[in-house]
Protein backbone atom coordinates (compact mmCIF):
# COMPACT_ATOMS: atom_id res chain seq x y z
CA UNK A 1 0.00 0.00 0.00
CA UNK A 2 1.61 3.19 -1.10
CA UNK A 3 1.36 6.63 0.40
CA UNK A 4 -1.40 7.68 -1.95
CA UNK A 5 -3.70 4.90 -0.76
CA UNK A 6 -3.05 5.77 2.87
CA UNK A 7 -3.85 9.42 2.27
CA UNK A 8 -7.00 8.50 0.40
CA UNK A 9 -8.21 6.25 3.18
CA UNK A 10 -7.39 8.85 5.78
CA UNK A 11 -9.31 11.45 3.82
CA UNK A 12 -12.41 9.25 3.68
CA UNK A 13 -12.07 8.55 7.36
CA UNK A 14 -12.00 12.25 8.21
CA UNK A 15 -14.97 12.86 5.95
CA UNK A 16 -16.99 10.15 7.66
CA UNK A 17 -16.17 11.56 11.09
CA UNK A 18 -17.09 15.04 9.91
CA UNK A 19 -20.43 13.87 8.58
CA UNK A 20 -21.17 12.09 11.81
CA UNK A 21 -20.35 15.17 13.84
CA UNK A 22 -22.51 17.35 11.62
CA UNK A 23 -25.41 14.96 11.91
CA UNK A 24 -25.09 14.83 15.68
CA UNK A 25 -24.96 18.62 15.78
CA UNK A 26 -28.08 18.85 13.67
CA UNK A 27 -30.04 16.47 15.88
CA UNK A 28 -28.83 18.36 18.95
CA UNK A 29 -29.99 21.68 17.51
CA UNK A 30 -33.35 20.22 16.61
CA UNK A 31 -33.83 19.03 20.17
CA UNK A 32 -32.84 22.38 21.57
CA UNK A 33 -35.30 24.21 19.35
CA UNK A 34 -38.08 21.76 20.18
CA UNK A 35 -37.43 22.09 23.88
CA UNK A 36 -37.44 25.89 23.54
CA UNK A 37 -40.81 25.91 21.82
CA UNK A 38 -42.19 23.39 24.27
CA UNK A 39 -41.09 25.46 27.27
CA UNK A 40 -42.26 28.68 25.65
CA UNK A 41 -45.65 27.15 24.99
CA UNK A 42 -45.95 25.96 28.57
CA UNK A 43 -44.84 29.33 29.92
CA UNK A 44 -47.16 31.18 27.56
CA UNK A 45 -50.04 28.93 28.56
CA UNK A 46 -49.24 29.49 32.21
CA UNK A 47 -49.02 33.27 31.85
CA UNK A 48 -52.12 33.33 29.66
CA UNK A 49 -54.23 31.91 32.45
CA UNK A 50 -53.32 34.48 35.10
CA UNK A 51 -56.07 34.64 37.73
CA UNK A 52 -56.66 38.36 37.25
CA UNK A 53 -59.55 38.28 39.70
CA UNK A 54 -56.98 38.35 42.49
CA UNK A 55 -55.81 41.73 41.31
CA UNK A 56 -58.73 44.00 42.03
CA UNK A 57 -56.89 47.30 42.04
CA UNK A 58 -53.55 48.10 40.49
CA UNK A 59 -51.47 51.23 41.07
CA UNK A 60 -48.77 52.51 38.74
CA UNK A 61 -46.16 54.94 40.03
CA UNK A 62 -44.23 56.82 37.36
CA UNK A 63 -41.35 59.25 37.71
CA UNK A 64 -42.68 62.71 36.92
CA UNK A 65 -40.06 63.23 34.23
CA UNK A 66 -41.17 60.07 32.44
CA UNK A 67 -44.83 60.84 32.98
CA UNK A 68 -44.66 63.39 30.15
CA UNK A 69 -44.43 60.44 27.73
CA UNK A 70 -48.16 60.09 27.33
CA UNK A 71 -47.85 57.58 24.51
CA UNK A 72 -45.95 55.19 26.73
CA UNK A 73 -48.47 55.59 29.52
CA UNK A 74 -51.28 54.86 27.08
CA UNK A 75 -49.44 51.79 25.79
CA UNK A 76 -49.05 50.53 29.34
CA UNK A 77 -52.76 51.02 29.97
CA UNK A 78 -53.59 49.20 26.76
CA UNK A 79 -51.49 46.25 27.84
CA UNK A 80 -53.29 46.21 31.17
CA UNK A 81 -56.65 46.43 29.46
CA UNK A 82 -55.77 43.49 27.23
CA UNK A 83 -54.85 41.48 30.30
CA UNK A 84 -58.23 42.18 31.81
CA UNK A 85 -57.06 44.60 34.48
CA UNK A 86 -59.70 47.28 34.63
CA UNK A 87 -59.08 49.28 37.79
CA UNK A 88 -55.91 51.30 37.63
CA UNK A 89 -54.54 54.16 39.69
CA UNK A 90 -51.87 56.33 38.05
CA UNK A 91 -49.54 58.30 40.28
CA UNK A 92 -46.71 60.70 39.74
CA UNK A 93 -45.43 63.07 42.36
CA UNK A 94 -45.87 66.35 40.48
CA UNK A 95 -49.28 65.75 38.96
CA UNK A 96 -48.07 65.49 35.35
CA UNK A 97 -50.42 62.59 34.70
CA UNK A 98 -53.33 64.61 36.03
CA UNK A 99 -52.57 67.26 33.44
CA UNK A 100 -52.40 64.58 30.73
CA UNK A 101 -55.75 63.14 31.79
CA UNK A 102 -57.60 64.47 28.80
CA UNK A 103 -55.06 63.15 26.33
CA UNK A 104 -55.10 59.74 27.97
CA UNK A 105 -58.87 59.47 27.96
CA UNK A 106 -58.85 60.56 24.34
CA UNK A 107 -56.72 57.50 23.50
CA UNK A 108 -58.40 55.13 25.96
CA UNK A 109 -61.93 55.32 24.63
CA UNK A 110 -63.37 52.69 26.93
CA UNK A 111 -61.92 54.18 30.09
CA UNK A 112 -63.79 56.19 32.70
CA UNK A 113 -62.56 58.35 35.51
CA UNK A 114 -63.07 57.07 39.02
CA UNK A 115 -65.17 60.15 39.74
CA UNK A 116 -67.67 59.04 37.13
CA UNK A 117 -68.08 55.59 38.63
CA UNK A 118 -70.67 55.61 41.39
CA UNK A 119 -70.42 52.17 42.86
CA UNK A 120 -67.33 50.89 44.64
CA UNK A 121 -64.62 50.60 42.06
CA UNK A 122 -63.76 47.03 42.81
CA UNK A 123 -67.37 45.91 42.65
CA UNK A 124 -68.43 47.18 39.29
CA UNK A 125 -68.72 44.95 36.27
CA UNK A 126 -65.46 45.54 34.39
CA UNK A 127 -66.76 46.39 30.95
CA UNK A 128 -64.61 49.45 30.96
CA UNK A 129 -61.40 50.61 32.58
CA UNK A 130 -61.58 52.85 35.60
CA UNK A 131 -58.69 55.25 35.93
CA UNK A 132 -57.72 57.22 38.98
CA UNK A 133 -55.14 60.00 38.78
CA UNK A 134 -53.23 60.75 41.94
CA UNK A 135 -50.33 62.97 42.92
CA UNK A 136 -48.49 64.15 46.00
CA UNK A 137 -51.35 66.35 47.15
CA UNK A 138 -53.48 63.23 47.57
CA UNK A 139 -51.05 61.78 50.08
CA UNK A 140 -49.78 63.59 53.13
CA UNK A 141 -51.55 66.82 52.24
CA UNK A 142 -54.84 64.96 51.99
CA UNK A 143 -54.32 63.41 55.42
CA UNK A 144 -53.72 66.88 56.84
CA UNK A 145 -56.91 68.13 55.17
CA UNK A 146 -58.86 65.14 56.45
CA UNK A 147 -57.57 65.72 59.98
CA UNK A 148 -58.49 69.39 59.69
CA UNK A 149 -61.98 68.43 58.57
CA UNK A 150 -62.42 66.22 61.62
CA UNK A 151 -61.23 69.00 63.92
CA UNK A 152 -63.60 71.52 62.33
CA UNK A 153 -66.56 69.16 62.55
CA UNK A 154 -65.79 68.42 66.19
CA UNK A 155 -65.54 72.10 66.95
CA UNK A 156 -68.88 72.79 65.30
CA UNK A 157 -70.48 70.02 67.30
CA UNK A 158 -68.93 71.41 70.47
CA UNK A 159 -70.25 74.89 69.72
CA UNK A 160 -73.70 73.40 69.36
CA UNK A 161 -73.44 71.88 72.79
CA UNK A 162 -71.90 68.59 71.87
CA UNK A 163 -68.89 66.94 73.42
CA UNK A 164 -65.42 67.89 72.27
CA UNK A 165 -63.33 64.76 72.40
CA UNK A 166 -60.50 64.52 69.92
CA UNK A 167 -59.09 61.50 71.67
CA UNK A 168 -61.94 59.43 70.27
CA UNK A 169 -60.39 59.85 66.81
CA UNK A 170 -59.88 56.48 65.19
CA UNK A 171 -58.73 55.10 61.86
CA UNK A 172 -62.26 54.75 60.48
CA UNK A 173 -62.85 58.47 61.13
CA UNK A 174 -59.78 59.33 59.12
CA UNK A 175 -60.87 56.91 56.38
CA UNK A 176 -64.21 58.62 56.17
CA UNK A 177 -62.70 62.10 56.18
CA UNK A 178 -60.30 61.12 53.39
CA UNK A 179 -63.26 60.05 51.28
CA UNK A 180 -64.90 63.41 51.88
CA UNK A 181 -61.81 65.40 50.83
CA UNK A 182 -61.69 63.44 47.60
CA UNK A 183 -59.43 60.46 48.22
CA UNK A 184 -61.85 57.79 47.17
CA UNK A 185 -59.59 55.11 45.78
CA UNK A 186 -59.13 51.84 47.63
CA UNK A 187 -55.88 50.29 48.75
CA UNK A 188 -54.13 48.83 45.71
CA UNK A 189 -53.32 45.14 45.77
CA UNK A 190 -50.23 45.72 43.69
CA UNK A 191 -48.11 48.78 43.02
CA UNK A 192 -45.73 48.86 40.07
CA UNK A 193 -42.99 51.49 40.15
CA UNK A 194 -41.61 52.72 36.82
CA UNK A 195 -38.51 54.78 37.40
CA UNK A 196 -34.85 54.57 38.32
CA UNK A 197 -35.47 54.72 42.06
CA UNK A 198 -36.94 51.84 44.01
CA UNK A 199 -39.27 54.00 46.01
CA UNK A 200 -43.00 54.64 45.79
CA UNK A 201 -42.20 58.38 45.58
CA UNK A 202 -44.80 59.51 48.07
CA UNK A 203 -47.78 57.46 46.90
CA UNK A 204 -50.59 58.08 49.44
CA UNK A 205 -49.21 56.36 52.50
CA UNK A 206 -52.62 55.65 53.98
CA UNK A 207 -53.36 53.35 51.05
CA UNK A 208 -50.34 51.05 50.92
CA UNK A 209 -50.65 49.26 54.21
CA UNK A 210 -50.38 45.79 52.69
CA UNK A 211 -49.76 46.61 49.05
CA UNK A 212 -47.21 44.54 47.16
CA UNK A 213 -44.60 46.83 45.67
CA UNK A 214 -42.64 45.84 42.58
CA UNK A 215 -39.99 47.91 40.84
CA UNK A 216 -40.21 47.66 37.05
CA UNK A 217 -37.34 49.87 35.93
CA UNK A 218 -37.57 52.92 33.74
CA UNK A 219 -40.72 53.58 31.72
CA UNK A 220 -38.50 53.94 28.66
CA UNK A 221 -37.60 50.27 28.86
CA UNK A 222 -40.97 48.85 29.83
CA UNK A 223 -41.72 45.40 28.43
CA UNK A 224 -44.98 43.59 28.02
CA UNK A 225 -43.36 40.38 29.24
CA UNK A 226 -42.09 42.02 32.41
CA UNK A 227 -45.54 43.36 33.14
CA UNK A 228 -47.13 39.95 32.73
CA UNK A 229 -44.49 38.36 34.89
CA UNK A 230 -44.93 40.89 37.69
CA UNK A 231 -48.68 40.37 37.73
CA UNK A 232 -48.33 36.61 37.52
CA UNK A 233 -45.91 36.55 40.45
CA UNK A 234 -48.29 38.68 42.47
CA UNK A 235 -51.13 36.24 41.97
CA UNK A 236 -49.01 33.51 43.51
CA UNK A 237 -48.25 35.40 46.70
CA UNK A 238 -49.82 34.58 50.05
CA UNK A 239 -50.44 37.34 52.51
CA UNK A 240 -51.61 37.14 56.08
CA UNK A 241 -53.01 40.54 56.84
CA UNK A 242 -52.12 41.29 60.45
CA UNK A 243 -53.55 37.98 61.60
CA UNK A 244 -50.58 36.86 63.62
CA UNK A 245 -49.80 37.92 67.12
CA UNK A 246 -48.40 41.35 67.38
CA UNK A 247 -46.20 40.21 70.13
CA UNK A 248 -45.39 37.19 72.17
CA UNK A 249 -43.96 37.06 75.64
CA UNK A 250 -41.59 34.21 76.26
CA UNK A 251 -42.38 32.53 79.56
CA UNK A 252 -45.88 33.93 79.65
CA UNK A 253 -47.65 33.56 76.32
CA UNK A 254 -49.98 36.39 75.65
CA UNK A 255 -51.53 36.05 72.25
CA UNK A 256 -53.29 39.15 71.09
CA UNK A 257 -54.93 38.57 67.79
CA UNK A 258 -55.19 41.61 65.61
CA UNK A 259 -57.39 41.52 62.60
CA UNK A 260 -57.11 44.35 60.20
CA UNK A 261 -60.71 45.20 59.46
CA UNK A 262 -59.74 46.98 56.29
CA UNK A 263 -58.41 43.88 54.59
CA UNK A 264 -59.45 40.25 54.68
CA UNK A 265 -57.92 38.99 51.46
CA UNK A 266 -55.73 35.92 51.13
CA UNK A 267 -53.50 34.90 48.33
CA UNK A 268 -51.83 31.55 48.51
CA UNK A 269 -48.15 31.18 47.79
CA UNK A 270 -47.51 28.11 45.70
Amino acid at each position, binding site marked *: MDFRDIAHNFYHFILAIGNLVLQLLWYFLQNIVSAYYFISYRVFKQYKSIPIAKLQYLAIVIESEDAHQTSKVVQLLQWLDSLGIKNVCLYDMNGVLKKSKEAIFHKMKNAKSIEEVNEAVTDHVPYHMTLEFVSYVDGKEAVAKAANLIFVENLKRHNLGGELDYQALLEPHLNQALQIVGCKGPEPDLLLVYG*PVRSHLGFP*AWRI*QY*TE*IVHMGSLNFMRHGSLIKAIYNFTKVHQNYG*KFSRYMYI*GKEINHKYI*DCASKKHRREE
Partner: protein
Amino acid sequence: MLSLSPPITLITCPPKTTTNPTHASRSQSRRLPSQPMIIIKRGTTVAGSIPNADKAEGRASIDEDLLEVELTQTELRKEMIPKHVAVIMDGNGRWAKMRGLPLSEGHTAGMQSLKTMVKMCLRWEIKLEVEFLFSLLERIINSETEAIMREQIKISMIGDSSKLPKSLQRMISSVEESTKNHSKLQLIAAINYGGKYDVVQACKSVAKKVQDGSLHLEDIDENIIEKELETKCTEFPNPDLLIRTSGELRVSNFMLWQLAYAELFFNQKLWPDFGKDEFVEALSFFQKRQRRYGGRH
Protein backbone atom coordinates in the same frame (compact mmCIF):
# COMPACT_ATOMS: atom_id res chain seq x y z
CA MET B 1 -31.41 54.86 62.70
CA LEU B 2 -32.41 51.30 62.54
CA SER B 3 -36.12 50.73 62.56
CA LEU B 4 -37.20 47.27 63.37
CA SER B 5 -40.63 45.91 63.29
CA PRO B 6 -41.01 43.66 65.46
CA PRO B 7 -38.35 44.94 63.76
CA ILE B 8 -37.30 47.53 66.18
CA THR B 9 -36.00 50.92 65.77
CA LEU B 10 -32.68 51.21 67.03
CA ILE B 11 -29.63 52.78 67.72
CA THR B 12 -28.38 56.12 66.87
CA CYS B 13 -24.78 56.99 66.50
CA PRO B 14 -23.11 60.18 67.51
CA PRO B 15 -23.74 63.22 65.43
CA LYS B 16 -21.89 63.12 62.23
CA THR B 17 -21.56 65.67 59.51
CA THR B 18 -22.12 64.28 56.09
CA THR B 19 -22.68 65.94 52.81
CA ASN B 20 -24.46 64.45 49.92
CA PRO B 21 -24.85 66.87 47.04
CA THR B 22 -27.22 64.58 45.16
CA HIS B 23 -29.80 64.74 47.89
CA ALA B 24 -32.34 67.46 48.35
CA SER B 25 -34.16 65.79 51.15
CA ARG B 26 -37.13 67.40 52.77
CA SER B 27 -35.67 66.38 56.04
CA GLN B 28 -32.17 67.60 55.32
CA SER B 29 -32.93 70.93 56.89
CA ARG B 30 -33.79 69.17 60.13
CA ARG B 31 -30.80 66.92 60.03
CA LEU B 32 -28.00 67.90 62.26
CA PRO B 33 -24.79 66.01 62.58
CA SER B 34 -26.16 63.53 65.00
CA GLN B 35 -26.45 60.06 66.20
CA PRO B 36 -27.02 57.34 63.68
CA MET B 37 -30.23 55.47 64.28
CA ILE B 38 -31.36 52.00 63.59
CA ILE B 39 -35.01 51.13 63.13
CA ILE B 40 -35.80 47.54 62.53
CA LYS B 41 -39.26 46.26 61.79
CA ARG B 42 -40.23 42.73 62.51
CA GLY B 43 -42.37 40.87 60.05
CA THR B 44 -45.19 38.73 61.29
CA THR B 45 -42.69 36.80 63.31
CA VAL B 46 -39.40 37.66 64.70
CA ALA B 47 -36.73 35.16 64.25
CA GLY B 48 -33.05 34.98 64.04
CA SER B 49 -30.79 32.25 62.96
CA ILE B 50 -27.69 31.44 64.86
CA PRO B 51 -25.55 28.73 63.29
CA ASN B 52 -23.69 28.21 66.52
CA ALA B 53 -25.71 26.42 69.19
CA ASP B 54 -24.13 28.47 71.95
CA LYS B 55 -24.94 31.68 70.21
CA ALA B 56 -28.49 30.44 69.83
CA GLU B 57 -28.80 31.05 73.53
CA GLY B 58 -27.96 34.68 72.92
CA ARG B 59 -24.91 34.46 75.09
CA ALA B 60 -22.62 36.40 72.81
CA SER B 61 -22.54 40.02 73.79
CA ILE B 62 -22.37 42.98 71.50
CA ASP B 63 -18.84 43.86 72.49
CA GLU B 64 -17.49 40.37 71.76
CA ASP B 65 -19.00 40.45 68.32
CA LEU B 66 -17.66 43.92 67.74
CA LEU B 67 -14.19 42.55 68.16
CA GLU B 68 -14.87 39.73 65.73
CA VAL B 69 -16.56 41.61 62.95
CA GLU B 70 -14.26 43.04 60.37
CA LEU B 71 -16.07 45.50 58.25
CA THR B 72 -14.86 46.33 54.81
CA GLN B 73 -15.99 49.54 53.37
CA THR B 74 -13.96 49.53 50.19
CA GLU B 75 -17.00 49.02 48.01
CA LEU B 76 -19.04 51.61 49.85
CA ARG B 77 -18.67 55.35 49.77
CA LYS B 78 -18.67 56.73 53.23
CA GLU B 79 -20.40 59.95 52.28
CA MET B 80 -23.30 57.97 50.81
CA ILE B 81 -23.98 55.73 53.76
CA PRO B 82 -27.66 56.21 54.61
CA LYS B 83 -28.31 58.10 57.80
CA HIS B 84 -31.34 56.04 58.69
CA VAL B 85 -32.00 52.42 57.79
CA ALA B 86 -35.27 50.67 58.51
CA VAL B 87 -35.32 46.89 58.55
CA ILE B 88 -38.26 44.50 58.51
CA MET B 89 -36.87 41.38 60.10
CA ASP B 90 -39.05 38.78 58.48
CA GLY B 91 -38.58 35.06 58.25
CA ASN B 92 -37.76 33.86 61.76
CA GLY B 93 -40.65 31.46 61.84
CA ARG B 94 -39.92 30.02 58.41
CA TRP B 95 -36.26 29.67 59.30
CA ALA B 96 -37.11 27.63 62.38
CA LYS B 97 -39.72 25.58 60.55
CA MET B 98 -37.27 24.67 57.79
CA ARG B 99 -34.91 23.30 60.41
CA GLY B 100 -37.53 21.55 62.47
CA LEU B 101 -36.85 23.88 65.36
CA PRO B 102 -39.35 25.57 67.70
CA LEU B 103 -40.33 29.13 66.89
CA SER B 104 -38.41 30.46 69.87
CA GLU B 105 -35.18 29.18 68.33
CA GLY B 106 -35.93 31.15 65.22
CA HIS B 107 -36.42 34.31 67.24
CA THR B 108 -33.22 33.66 69.12
CA ALA B 109 -31.33 33.16 65.89
CA GLY B 110 -32.79 36.38 64.60
CA MET B 111 -31.36 38.17 67.60
CA GLN B 112 -27.89 37.27 66.42
CA SER B 113 -28.55 38.79 63.02
CA LEU B 114 -29.80 41.86 64.78
CA LYS B 115 -26.68 42.08 66.89
CA THR B 116 -24.53 41.79 63.77
CA MET B 117 -26.42 44.60 62.15
CA VAL B 118 -26.20 46.76 65.25
CA LYS B 119 -22.45 46.24 65.31
CA MET B 120 -22.11 47.24 61.70
CA CYS B 121 -24.25 50.29 62.24
CA LEU B 122 -22.15 51.26 65.24
CA ARG B 123 -19.03 51.03 63.14
CA TRP B 124 -20.55 52.81 60.17
CA GLU B 125 -22.56 55.28 62.19
CA ILE B 126 -25.89 54.35 60.68
CA LYS B 127 -29.13 54.93 62.50
CA LEU B 128 -31.15 51.77 62.76
CA GLU B 129 -34.83 51.37 63.49
CA VAL B 130 -36.29 48.09 64.49
CA GLU B 131 -39.59 46.83 65.66
CA PHE B 132 -39.12 44.14 68.19
CA LEU B 133 -40.99 41.29 69.59
CA PHE B 134 -41.18 42.71 73.08
CA SER B 135 -39.99 39.54 74.67
CA LEU B 136 -36.83 39.69 72.62
CA LEU B 137 -36.41 43.34 73.48
CA GLU B 138 -36.58 42.44 77.14
CA ARG B 139 -33.98 39.72 76.63
CA ILE B 140 -31.66 41.97 74.69
CA ILE B 141 -31.86 44.74 77.21
CA ASN B 142 -31.28 42.35 80.10
CA SER B 143 -28.39 40.55 78.45
CA GLU B 144 -26.71 43.55 76.88
CA THR B 145 -27.08 46.15 79.63
CA GLU B 146 -23.35 46.46 80.08
CA ALA B 147 -22.70 46.83 76.36
CA ILE B 148 -25.53 49.34 76.04
CA MET B 149 -24.02 51.47 78.77
CA ARG B 150 -20.47 51.10 77.53
CA GLU B 151 -21.30 51.84 73.91
CA GLN B 152 -23.42 54.80 74.92
CA ILE B 153 -26.51 53.43 73.19
CA LYS B 154 -29.67 55.40 73.74
CA ILE B 155 -32.81 53.27 73.95
CA SER B 156 -36.18 54.69 72.94
CA MET B 157 -39.53 53.10 72.38
CA ILE B 158 -42.38 53.91 70.02
CA GLY B 159 -45.75 52.23 69.68
CA ASP B 160 -48.76 51.71 71.90
CA SER B 161 -47.22 50.65 75.21
CA SER B 162 -50.51 50.66 77.09
CA LYS B 163 -51.19 47.05 76.19
CA LEU B 164 -47.79 45.75 77.19
CA PRO B 165 -47.17 43.86 80.44
CA LYS B 166 -46.49 46.25 83.29
CA SER B 167 -43.09 44.75 83.95
CA LEU B 168 -42.00 45.49 80.40
CA GLN B 169 -43.40 48.99 80.57
CA ARG B 170 -41.39 49.63 83.73
CA MET B 171 -38.27 48.15 82.24
CA ILE B 172 -38.55 50.26 79.10
CA SER B 173 -39.13 53.43 81.11
CA SER B 174 -36.14 52.64 83.23
CA VAL B 175 -33.88 51.99 80.26
CA GLU B 176 -35.08 55.08 78.46
CA GLU B 177 -34.34 57.18 81.52
CA SER B 178 -30.93 55.70 82.15
CA THR B 179 -29.81 56.05 78.55
CA LYS B 180 -31.41 59.36 77.64
CA ASN B 181 -28.08 61.17 77.61
CA HIS B 182 -26.25 58.57 75.55
CA SER B 183 -25.07 59.90 72.26
CA LYS B 184 -23.24 57.27 70.28
CA LEU B 185 -26.13 55.29 68.89
CA GLN B 186 -29.91 55.39 69.36
CA LEU B 187 -31.89 52.20 69.40
CA ILE B 188 -35.57 52.75 68.89
CA ALA B 189 -37.80 49.82 69.69
CA ALA B 190 -41.11 49.86 67.85
CA ILE B 191 -43.47 47.69 69.89
CA ASN B 192 -47.12 47.29 69.08
CA TYR B 193 -46.52 49.92 66.43
CA GLY B 194 -48.45 50.51 63.21
CA GLY B 195 -48.12 53.13 60.53
CA LYS B 196 -51.79 54.08 60.65
CA TYR B 197 -51.77 54.08 64.44
CA ASP B 198 -48.86 56.53 64.29
CA VAL B 199 -50.74 58.91 61.99
CA VAL B 200 -53.89 58.73 64.10
CA GLN B 201 -52.04 59.43 67.34
CA ALA B 202 -50.25 62.33 65.63
CA CYS B 203 -53.64 63.76 64.64
CA LYS B 204 -54.80 63.37 68.25
CA SER B 205 -51.73 65.26 69.46
CA VAL B 206 -52.39 68.03 66.98
CA ALA B 207 -56.04 68.15 68.05
CA LYS B 208 -55.03 68.50 71.66
CA LYS B 209 -52.80 71.44 70.79
CA VAL B 210 -55.69 73.05 68.96
CA GLN B 211 -57.91 72.42 71.95
CA ASP B 212 -55.31 73.94 74.27
CA GLY B 213 -55.02 76.97 72.04
CA SER B 214 -51.34 76.48 71.24
CA LEU B 215 -52.13 75.81 67.59
CA HIS B 216 -54.60 77.30 65.15
CA LEU B 217 -56.69 75.17 62.84
CA GLU B 218 -55.53 77.05 59.77
CA ASP B 219 -51.89 76.29 60.64
CA ILE B 220 -52.38 72.55 60.41
CA ASP B 221 -50.53 71.00 57.50
CA GLU B 222 -48.52 67.86 56.80
CA ASN B 223 -45.45 69.26 58.54
CA ILE B 224 -47.36 69.80 61.76
CA ILE B 225 -48.63 66.23 61.67
CA GLU B 226 -45.16 64.92 60.86
CA LYS B 227 -43.74 66.59 63.95
CA GLU B 228 -46.21 64.69 66.11
CA LEU B 229 -45.42 61.23 64.77
CA GLU B 230 -43.79 58.89 67.25
CA THR B 231 -40.52 59.11 65.36
CA LYS B 232 -40.17 62.64 66.71
CA CYS B 233 -37.87 61.07 69.28
CA THR B 234 -35.18 60.93 66.62
CA GLU B 235 -33.34 63.52 64.62
CA PHE B 236 -33.84 61.71 61.33
CA PRO B 237 -37.38 60.35 61.43
CA ASN B 238 -37.52 59.35 57.77
CA PRO B 239 -35.54 56.29 56.73
CA ASP B 240 -33.29 56.53 53.68
CA LEU B 241 -33.39 52.79 53.14
CA LEU B 242 -35.87 50.08 54.02
CA ILE B 243 -34.67 46.48 54.06
CA ARG B 244 -37.17 43.66 54.20
CA THR B 245 -36.06 40.05 54.30
CA SER B 246 -37.69 36.76 53.32
CA GLY B 247 -38.77 37.93 49.89
CA GLU B 248 -41.93 39.77 50.87
CA LEU B 249 -42.59 42.90 48.82
CA ARG B 250 -44.60 45.15 51.11
CA VAL B 251 -44.18 47.47 54.09
CA SER B 252 -46.92 45.85 56.17
CA ASN B 253 -48.17 48.97 57.91
CA PHE B 254 -44.71 49.97 59.09
CA MET B 255 -43.82 53.68 59.08
CA LEU B 256 -46.24 54.38 56.25
CA TRP B 257 -45.76 58.13 56.50
CA GLN B 258 -42.02 58.06 56.99
CA LEU B 259 -41.18 55.70 54.12
CA ALA B 260 -42.46 57.99 51.38
CA TYR B 261 -39.07 58.43 49.74
CA ALA B 262 -37.13 55.55 51.20
CA GLU B 263 -35.33 53.16 48.90
CA LEU B 264 -36.99 49.80 49.18
CA PHE B 265 -34.64 46.83 49.24
CA PHE B 266 -36.39 43.45 49.33
CA ASN B 267 -34.10 40.52 50.02
CA GLN B 268 -34.90 36.84 49.59
CA LYS B 269 -32.92 35.69 52.60
CA LEU B 270 -34.72 34.89 55.82
CA TRP B 271 -33.81 37.25 58.62
CA PRO B 272 -31.64 34.81 60.59
CA ASP B 273 -29.54 34.32 57.45
CA PHE B 274 -29.21 38.04 56.76
CA GLY B 275 -25.67 38.99 57.63
CA LYS B 276 -22.90 41.35 56.85
CA ASP B 277 -22.68 40.49 53.15
CA GLU B 278 -26.37 41.04 52.66
CA PHE B 279 -26.25 44.32 54.54
CA VAL B 280 -23.32 45.50 52.41
CA GLU B 281 -25.31 44.51 49.33
CA ALA B 282 -28.22 46.59 50.55
CA LEU B 283 -26.00 49.59 51.18
CA SER B 284 -24.37 49.19 47.75
CA PHE B 285 -27.81 49.04 46.21
CA PHE B 286 -28.69 52.25 48.00
CA GLN B 287 -25.57 54.02 46.84
CA LYS B 288 -26.04 53.08 43.22
CA ARG B 289 -29.44 54.63 42.95
CA GLN B 290 -29.98 58.19 42.08
CA ARG B 291 -31.91 59.59 44.86
CA ARG B 292 -34.29 62.45 44.73
CA TYR B 293 -35.95 63.48 47.87
CA GLY B 294 -39.23 65.26 47.42
CA GLY B 295 -37.98 67.10 44.37
CA ARG B 296 -41.27 68.66 43.45
CA HIS B 297 -41.38 71.22 40.66
